[in-house]
């Protein structure tokens, strides 16, 4: 899902920067309004940024390709509005240190992973309408949030890539390869969905306050 430099046209990269800038401003604005002391959430955001950074190194072979963990859903569930800036920092570190993704596409990548993370957070926080202390509701919403965050991100990335394939390439072959890669994210979505359920149920048992910290 990390689109590298040189793949997208300049207009798409610039649009990504504008959109990411807008969502970052919105996130910071909401954080400022919601939290009395946003500094309290920085340790949590910092540790999850590290987890997001390392997750991209864990590759899962899905023949004929291989994919890696993303953790955008978990970020949204745990961090709420903090998820977008945390993903932005994680993507910057991945691009600079491992050339994973790219600096010109950091805006696009932040939108592809960060916006589904925010939506995942909103979906998980709808638990207050169904019973925030019920184990089954927490588990179900945690799975759906994380699963849909990956599927939405992969689907949007595939659409963007398909509509920007350069004419000099074999378009049908490249389109088929993109569809295969997007489909390979389905096992990742399932794995991350189960992982998020485990994390949420664990936190619900030992420290439920960590799941109630923000009101997305």
């Amino acid at each position, binding site marked *: 899902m990390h689109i590298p430099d040189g793949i997208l046209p300049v207009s798409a990269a610039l649009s990504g920067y504008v959109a990411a800038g807008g969502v970052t401003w919105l996130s910071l604005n909401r954080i400022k309004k919601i939290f009395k002391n946003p500094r309290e959430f920085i340790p949590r955001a910092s540790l999850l940024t590290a987890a997001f*950074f390392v997750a991209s190194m864990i590759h899962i072979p899905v023949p004929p390709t291989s994919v890696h963990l993303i953790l955008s859903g978990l970020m949204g569930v745990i961090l709420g509005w903090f998820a977008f800036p945390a993903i932005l920092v994680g993507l910057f570190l991945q691009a600079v240190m491992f050339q994973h993704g790219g600096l010109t596409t950091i805006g696009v990548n932040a939108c592809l992973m960060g916006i589904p993370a925010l939506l995942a957070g909103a979906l998980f926080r709808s638990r207050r309408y169904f019973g925030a202390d019920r184990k089954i509701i927490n588990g179900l919403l945690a799975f759906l949030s994380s699963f849909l965050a990956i599927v939405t991100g992969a689907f949007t990335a595939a659409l963007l890539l398909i509509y920007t394939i350069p004419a000099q390439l074999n378009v049908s072959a490249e389109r088929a390869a993109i569809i295969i890669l997007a489909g390979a994210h389905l096992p990742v979505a399932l794995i991350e969905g189960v992982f998020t359920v485990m994390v949420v149920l664990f936190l619900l048992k030992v420290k439920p306050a960590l799941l109630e910290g923000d009101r997305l």
Partner: protein
Amino acid sequence: MNNLMHKNILLNCISMICVLSMLLLPLSAIAHGVDITAVPINAVEIYALFDSGQPMAGGQVTIYAPDEPLDPWLTGICDEEGRFIFVPDYSRPGMWEIKVRLAGHGDLIRLEVTAAEESVVSEAGRLSFLQKIIMALVVVWGAVGTALYFSRRDG
């Protein structure tokens, strides 16, 4: 009677030899028309791998000559090992660009071609697994430090 039979056999043999000779003549003529020459040339071999180490099998290669950076000079497909071999046009020295792309992933490298059939690839070196682990640990340590800093109690 016996003499006549020998004559017939002899005639048959001669006619068969004549027919065979007529059949073989054009073949030998074609064989003489082939001229195979083998000259060693300085080819360039590309290996394209994902950062997981998996070969970019089926990756689309696009090569641009230095004097024509917009129109591809050559396009091709990587084999199962992510390999592609081509011979640059040594009459067009300069910085050649080679792009490999597969499923929205790809990279570009530059190849310096000189008229003396010597080429130099300018490419960022790949990180070893150990280097990656150390770099990841550095980032994790930085994140833990940030977390500890912001979780300290004032005063």
